[in-house]
């Protein structure tokens, strides 16, 4: 695993980190619930084929400024600014979890921004017959097992790298959790259902078959309402953080869809 190149762009007057690796056509990636505290294996796989650009959303590792974002228009504006500053306008875009939520919103509000879209288990909808889990009302010891089918690997992914201050690292992860809550509290329903028809970019909807946060049945709800070409894939033995649980299977599905 090599280290990505790092640069920073300004969004809302605050610095946001942009990681980049690989050659070829740009492929954007917006990270999930804890953002990208490290460069994940999935992006290594993708960078063998594409120039992967992974900007950090406000509040997620590498970026601050989320506490000025009060509502959905603020978040969509910040995401548009971030994609433009990172050189991702008109590119293919992958979003995971929180990142997928904002990728879907951007695709609905601004059709020209995204060429092809990959959504990995987005929030944004709520069906009371199969409710989205309240991931914040959890005990610290039960959360890894709720998020992932490979909790030990998740713990290693979130552990402070050598040389990092453990206390500051825990605050960095807590900040990411707060940023997600700022967007999604209390149910994750952002009214996306009313905008799905506006998403006309060809879309791959990916879902961990064992997602205990947003039920996998939401994949069909989303796919049936999208306005353009759509493909749905379930990833076996993967939870809500499917890109961490099964990086090879997710990479294969994404590259197959984009080729």
């Amino acid at each position: 695993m090599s280290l990505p190149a790092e640069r920073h762009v300004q969004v809302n007057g605050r610095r946001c980190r942009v990681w980049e690796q690989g050659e070829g056509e740009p492929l954007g990636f917006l990270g999930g619930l804890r953002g990208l505290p490290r460069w994940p294996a999935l992006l290594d796989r993708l960078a063998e084929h594409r120039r992967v650009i992974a900007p950090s959303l406000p509040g997620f590792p590498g970026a601050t400024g989320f506490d000025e974002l009060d509502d959905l228009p603020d978040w969509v504006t910040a995401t548009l600014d971030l994609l433009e500053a990172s050189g991702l306008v008109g590119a293919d875009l992958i979003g995971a979890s929180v990142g997928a939520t904002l990728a879907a919103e951007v695709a609905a509000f601004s059709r020209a921004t995204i060429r092809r879209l990959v959504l990995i288990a987005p929030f944004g909808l709520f069906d009371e017959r199969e409710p989205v889990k309240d991931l914040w009302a959890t005990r610290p010891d039960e959360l890894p097992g709720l998020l992932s089918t490979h909790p030990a690997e998740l713990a290693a992914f979130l552990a402070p790298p050598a040389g990092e201050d453990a206390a500051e690292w825990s605050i960095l992860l807590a900040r990411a959790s707060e940023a997600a809550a700022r967007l999604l509290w209390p149910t994750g329903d952002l009214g996306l259902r009313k905008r799905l028809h506006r998403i006309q970019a060809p879309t791959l909807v990916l879902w961990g078959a064992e997602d205990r946060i947003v039920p996998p049945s939401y994949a069909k709800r989303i796919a049936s309402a999208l306005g353009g070409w759509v493909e749905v894939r379930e990833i076996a033995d993967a939870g809500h953080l499917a890109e961490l649980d099964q990086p090879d299977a997710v990479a294969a599905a994404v590259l197959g869809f984009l080729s």
Partner: protein
Amino acid sequence: MKLLWFHLMPYTDLPEDFKQKHPSVWVDIDSRLFDPRKAHVLYNEFMDELEHAAEVGFHGICVNEHHSNAYGLMPSPNLIAASLARRTRDAAIVVMGNSLALYNPPTRVAEEMAMIDCISGGRLVAGFPVGTPMDTCFAYSQNPSQLRQRYHEAHDLIMRAWQDPDPFTWNGRFHKLRYVNVWPRPLQKPHPPVWIPGGGSVETWHWCAERDYVYSYLSYFGYKNGEATMQGFWDEMKRLGKDPNPYRAGFLQFVGVAETREEALALYREPAEYFYGRCLHLDPRYVLAPGYSSEATQRARVRSAVADAAARSRGGAGGGAGGQATGFEAIVDEGYVIVGSPDEVAEKLRELAVNLNVGHLMLLLQFGNMNHQLTQYNTELFAKRVLPQLADLFDDEWEDRWWPQGLPAAEAARPREVRA
């Protein structure tokens, strides 16, 4: 000093196996445990107890706000305070208080508190808590990441609404109000005294100091555990150049008094164990919400958690492995509840007031499932034999600038007597 009588209004009939059979006293408390006929009796006894406390000489009576909570039956303390305003004469009515971010528009708080201030003849203390994560983020679904920003905006709006003589437009970040014009206006000028119940965050201390508000540390864990926090508060006041006027501070303490220490130990065991066992049985899922604590507070907590762990590994902390005490002996040893004869209690409370430098002592003389009769006994004995030993403390040296003004007796309205 001021001695205040504080009621939490706990539901007193939680079953003995509550901890085993139910996950939490708060947020998802089982509604099948609630009997409204029982609550009818409880509410009336509780309000009698507050009125009784005012009659026997406590300087103030206190109510507070909790939601979906079996140890706090006051989702709306203002309803209780309004009734107390009619049925008491001189005591301060301390609403401790309204969780500002829960009200939309927040001018509702300005209106209701102005009503209470008018009805009571200027006896209101306006308490403005942020509210716990359980109350605000879970029971009321407020966004924890916005809670403090909303709280501060609501505070600014309410304070202006009480003081600006003209209608104004509020174009805030979270609230847009074309016409703000609170009617009625509070009787106390420029506004009722403001007290801030808080935990131990440095930001809250600064905020109180800047605005000249009372900081009130409402812990259930007594004077021994509260010492470090109050020390931190006074160190910070000194650093900010504020005088050490004890009336800048309030502190909560559970007390059980009887003729002898032995008798007190026998009388207050059950209600104390009921409170610390059943009432504080809280699902850890609801204790934290992301963003509820600032990053500065998180940093301080990480540091103190490291210190706690070190202390515990050295064999300290009487509360047992990482938890609070629930057995009566430990509850008393740890100082959660002060029990004893009137003289013993007076001596301990004097020590508390002096060591913690607290001028507003809020006393919980009803706690857990303590029945009406025992509550009356505790209250009366305290008023007769403890309160007179303490009431003079601090007054030769310090002025309480945070106490309600009240109308002169000649101007005070006389509500008609209730006839059966």
